[in-house]
């Protein structure tokens, strides 16, 4: 079997892309398009919904259906699409600002509904597009263009948030783990119910520059050294866990999704009386 390239979903003449050298969004997009190809997705039955920010530019490169929305609201738009036509593959591309900073409410409710969307979140630890400001996902103490003396706040664990809110599938990978990333995206696309793939991404231009990881390789090393396969991570002591994060498939369950539950309720409403 020849390797999937995903090129059939890529618009002609748009490369090179606009993302900075060293950014992980291109790796994520490549992995997603390969996953589309391996699952034989059609442009007609696929809708990619994007938010605002670096990741929000991804729709410009695609020839699938697409809806480029407002900051933080992509999941809510996608919910309307999927609820009205459950046969569509609806994939939502967001940054960490989109998904859990301005859009956190939609994120937890999409997971709670367990609506059959695949959310792919590029987590680059800051607001890249606007110049590297602090986000709800910037680790405490880290430096950004709006935390010159360090971030006084804590960061969200996006995967943990999705898990407790009710997502059927949760995974985390990094561009350092490119093949695994494609596999996780495939699993997420295939899963009924809400699925999340969080992708830690280098942002050497802003976050790296402000945090002594100006070279892309330094941020990738950070992921490689800190990111442990989830089985190994779970065996660590509480103290050791502080220096690491788990990668791989973190949650995999089969609770009924929103549309399945909705049709159950509809059957009650339309049952003959008596």
């Amino acid at each position: 079997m020849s390797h999937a390239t995903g090129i059939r979903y890529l618009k002609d003449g748009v490369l090179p892309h606009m993302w900075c050298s060293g950014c992980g969004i291109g790796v994520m997009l490549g992995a997603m398009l390969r996953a589309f190809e391996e699952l034989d997705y059609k442009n007609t039955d696929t809708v990619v919904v994007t938010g605002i920010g670096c990741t929000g530019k991804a729709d410009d490169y695609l020839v699938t259906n697409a809806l480029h929305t407002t900051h933080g609201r992509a999941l809510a738009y996608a919910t309307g699409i999927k609820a009205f036509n459950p046969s569509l593959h609806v994939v939502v591309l967001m940054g960490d600002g989109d998904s859990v900073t301005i859009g956190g409410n939609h994120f937890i409710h999409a997971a709670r509904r367990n609506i059959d969307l695949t959310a792919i979140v590029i987590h680059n630890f800051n607001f890249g597009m606007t110049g590297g400001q602090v986000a709800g996902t910037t680790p405490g103490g880290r430096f950004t263009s709006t935390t010159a003396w360090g971030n006084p706040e804590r960061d969200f664990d996006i995967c943990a948030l999705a898990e407790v809110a009710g997502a059927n599938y949760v995974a985390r990978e990094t561009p350092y783990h490119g093949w695994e990333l494609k596999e996780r995206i495939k699993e997420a696309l295939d899963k009924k119910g809400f699925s999340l793939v969080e992708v830690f991404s280098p942002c050497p231009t802003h976050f790296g520059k402000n945090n002594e990881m100006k070279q892309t390789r330094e941020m990738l090393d950070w992921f490689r050294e800190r990111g442990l396969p989830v089985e190994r991570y779970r065996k660590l002591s509480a103290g050791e866990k502080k220096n690491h994060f788990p990668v791989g498939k973190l949650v995999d369950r089969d609770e009924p999704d929103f549309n399945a539950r909705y049709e159950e309720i509809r059957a009650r409403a339309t049952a003959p009386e008596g």
Partner: protein
Amino acid sequence: MAKEARLVQGNQAMAEGAIYAGARFYAGYPITPSSEIAEECSKVMLKVGGVYMQMEDEIASIAAVIGASLTGAKAFTATSGPGFSLMQENLGLAVMGEVPCVVIDVQRCGPSTGLATKPAQSDIMQLRWGRHGDQIVIALCPATVNECFALTVTAFNFAEKFRVPVILAPDEIVGHMRENFSVPEPGEIAVIDRKKPSVSADRYLPFAADADGVAPLAAYGSDYVFHVSSSMHGRDGYSNNDPANAAWRVAQLHRKIEMHQDEIVLTKSFAVEDADVLLIAYGATTRAGRAAAMEARKQGIKAGVLQLVTLWPFADKEVAALAKKAKTVVVPEMNYSGQVAGEVRRVLGSGAEIRRVNSYNGEIISPQDILKAIV
């Protein structure tokens, strides 16, 4: 056979009007005084094969409505002032992306939480200018339960025909008022569906307007693949930063409404032919205005009422034509600042005599209040 009339609330009639117009998707967040619309839809949508969703907030509600509309649904939401404020950014996407949808804003007394259960007509400028960026919208305003139903159908028809969001803005009085009403038979009121593309799928451009100013709209999941963007975009829907494209785009969004102005601007008149005193009213205030005009005529003053059924675009021509024949113009409205009176002033110029009657305490304007301004 005479049709059975029921005692129906304005909010209920709007929900029934939406279903009659073919609405099959509702997403909303409950808020007084609009919640009866959500309650009705939550029951009916399941039975007619549609979808009702209660979203996490009004931001998500209008977003889901837009998503569903692009997937082929006639879709709508209902709210009141605070929720309408939250919807504005995404409503701008419906303008920019030319997405048909209907938003009902049952107006209540503000600012902020204000008097949550009391009426107002104070969102008139927010209807028109609530979103950032230069744009134009259609806003309609019913005065009776019958109009609640009929104008909801009209709102969907305009939304579908012109690929725009249409706002229906009753006040709390009209939303909660009950009157005898019977649902028209199917076909009794015309129902318009959006224009679908007829070119081959590889030649479809979602923003290439026909001669009528409106581009055909496909649906996600059809044979047509397309992009819709909140960013400035070209005819193909892909983002485009070229200044010439931006100029075409902004002008096109305005032009498609402006070229159909005569069809969109709806008014009703009562006893205006010989009127020396012209009342310009809308929503619940229309009825008080009619009662005041009839009372004035008993006292020998020739008064008439121009009802603004379409609030936006503003009825410049109709106001100018009738005001020319009258000596005095009176504008009763439930706001402090004279939001419609200001528009009437813009149309008639600084020399015209315009008397304002305003209520901004959550109380309706009575015929007596208006009569005082006439005699």
